[in-house]
């Protein structure tokens, strides 16, 4: 899969993610609310995508579906040719375990647990032994520049450091796709830029596909592709040609 990701830029590659006519309806009857109204979307492997839009536009719902945390009410979601809409709860969990990494706005680290143990957590579910977990965990922490802080608990780390631990946790399994839900939402602009540079670097060096929800144009400017949502539909898709440069 690393090979597939490395050749991300080539035109011949088929999309790693493909949505076809995806709808999502919450509730039933007269109170039903249609959050997605038939979204078509292709995302190429190795892309760095920012998802933008006002609240209620369907961007979070889309991210939940792309993260295999939720299923469409109708339509198709193909992830690496797998029809995710046909999978059950546990099968989607295995898909997340194998191919996806998550970064949240609120960091969502386990409190009173060291940075290394937090990073090791996905490896526990992969059934890796203790030594492998430590080796991979330390390597991931090194990538985010926190290997010296491995035995600190989240309470002892700054917000920026916590988010970097969360990123280390997301990449420790070498996933194909990294999903980040407003990763800089709780950080000041300086820390935000650091996090964005980190994500950009990971995208460039490891070929990992990054999907990021944000409402800050400055952060979206780091992405190669910016998808704008509005009223449950994709409004437009912009391509940044000066990706990675400060606006």
């Amino acid at each position, binding site marked *: 899969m690393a090979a597939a990701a490395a050749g991300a830029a080539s035109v011949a590659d088929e999309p790693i993610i493909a949505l076809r006519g995806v709808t999502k309806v919450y509730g039933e009857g007269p109170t039903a609310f249609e959050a997605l109204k038939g979204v078509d979307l292709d995302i190429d492997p190795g892309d760095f995508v920012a998802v933008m839009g006002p609240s209620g536009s369907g961007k979070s719902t889309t991210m939940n579906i792309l993260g295999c945390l939720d299923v469409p009410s109708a339509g198709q979601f193909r992830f690496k040719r797998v029809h995710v809409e046909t999978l059950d709860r546990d099968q989607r969990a295995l898909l*997340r375990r*194998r191919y996806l990494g998550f970064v949240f706005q609120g960091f*969502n680290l386990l409190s009173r647990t060291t940075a290394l143990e937090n990073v090791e957590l996905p490896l526990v579910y992969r059934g890796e032994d203790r030594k492998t977990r430590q080796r991979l965990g330390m390597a991931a922490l090194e990538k985010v520049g926190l290997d010296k802080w491995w035995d600190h608990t989240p309470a002892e780390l700054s917000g920026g450091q916590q988010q970097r631990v969360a990123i280390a946790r997301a990449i420790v399994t070498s996933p194909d796709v990294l999903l980040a839900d407003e990763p800089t939402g709780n950080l000041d602009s300086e820390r935000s830029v650091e996090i964005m540079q980190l994500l950009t670097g990971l995208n460039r060096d490891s070929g990992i596909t990054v999907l990021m929800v944000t409402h800050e144009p400055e952060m979206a400017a780091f992405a190669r592709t910016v998808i704008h949502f509005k009223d449950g539909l994709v409004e437009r898709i912009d391509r940044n040609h000066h990706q990675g440069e400060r606006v």
Partner: protein
Amino acid sequence: MLATTFTLALRSIRRHLLRSFLTVLGIVIGVAAVVAMVTLGQATTAAVQQSIASLGTNILQVRPGQGFGRGGGGARPPDFDQRDVDAVVEQVAGVKAVAPQAQSTATAIYNGANWSTTINGTTNDYFEVQPWNLTGGRTFLPAEEAAGRAVCIIGNTVRQNLFREQPAVGERIRLNNVSCDVIGTLETRGQAGFGGDQDDVVIMPIKTVQRRFTGNRDVRLMLVGVDDNYDTAQVQESLTEVLRERRRLEEGDEDNFNIFDTAQISATLTGTTTLLTSIVAAVAGISLVVGGIGIMNIMLVSVTERTREIGIRLAIGAVAREVLLQFLVEAIVLSMLGGLIGLVLAQIVIVVLTPIMQVPFVFDPQINLIAFAISAIIGVVFGFFPARRAASLNPIDALRHE
């Protein structure tokens, strides 16, 4: 994976040490109560059996009277006499020996010390049908029995009260107005299972007691020793037949004598104590269930508190079964720890109570194992519902949980 889950459970328990302890208190008390009650119950049963065994096995006690608790009304059934005793020995197959008994009470006096006690008139057969050894001296000589001489063998309680630590054999004591030579002392027999000090007795030849104390030739009680090769029930049957004939009872008349089989009494009493033990243990077992509910309660609280953690685990790819296992293992470890503490507590209670209850200390590994297993099962049963709730959480909602 399981080892990791186990470590995780221990860590989570350690993180809330006080809460965990309070949670398992119900299990601790339940296990301790069940184990202590059952163990002490078994010890009591053993003690009862022991004291009945000291009466001797394969013994039939025959007394005049009509059934248990048949009060008032009608003439008192007649006592037995020596001819009845002889008839039993001769006519009932399987009888090893018959010790007749005539009883009275008297005040024993020696050197200014006096002690009120029971006089038991019998023959040397008394020492043959039941195990009761002498600590000193001898039993009756045939001449003493035949002539009804004033000789006596004293029980340990009487000996202690009259002689303290001095030798008793060869001394002369007074029983009411009868002078009597002490020819033997008996070993301690202890409390009878149904109260009364068996050592508070003076044993004399039956003829002496009949002549000098009761003033008649009546025999109040026959101790019938049954040959080991015969069935006690069968001997009891033919004994009844012989006695009914001798007492001229018509067909349809009720027996006017009672035959107690010590083995049967032992079985009855053992049955009773066993039943009581199981009732008390069942009551104690209820607290185990209450303890289980306590565990379920705290596990539910814990699941709610850790909703975000569960969300994280689900998001990074834990399947439902793994989350379920995590919380289930935590509940099981918790209740097994409670069970262990309960077992230790139970042993302490038993060690403290056995001397007070005057029963032997018995360590029964079976009940300890069973109680421990039950504590584990309680963890499974009461931990399952909270664990399933954790596993069925929606990761999106769980991650948003504040």
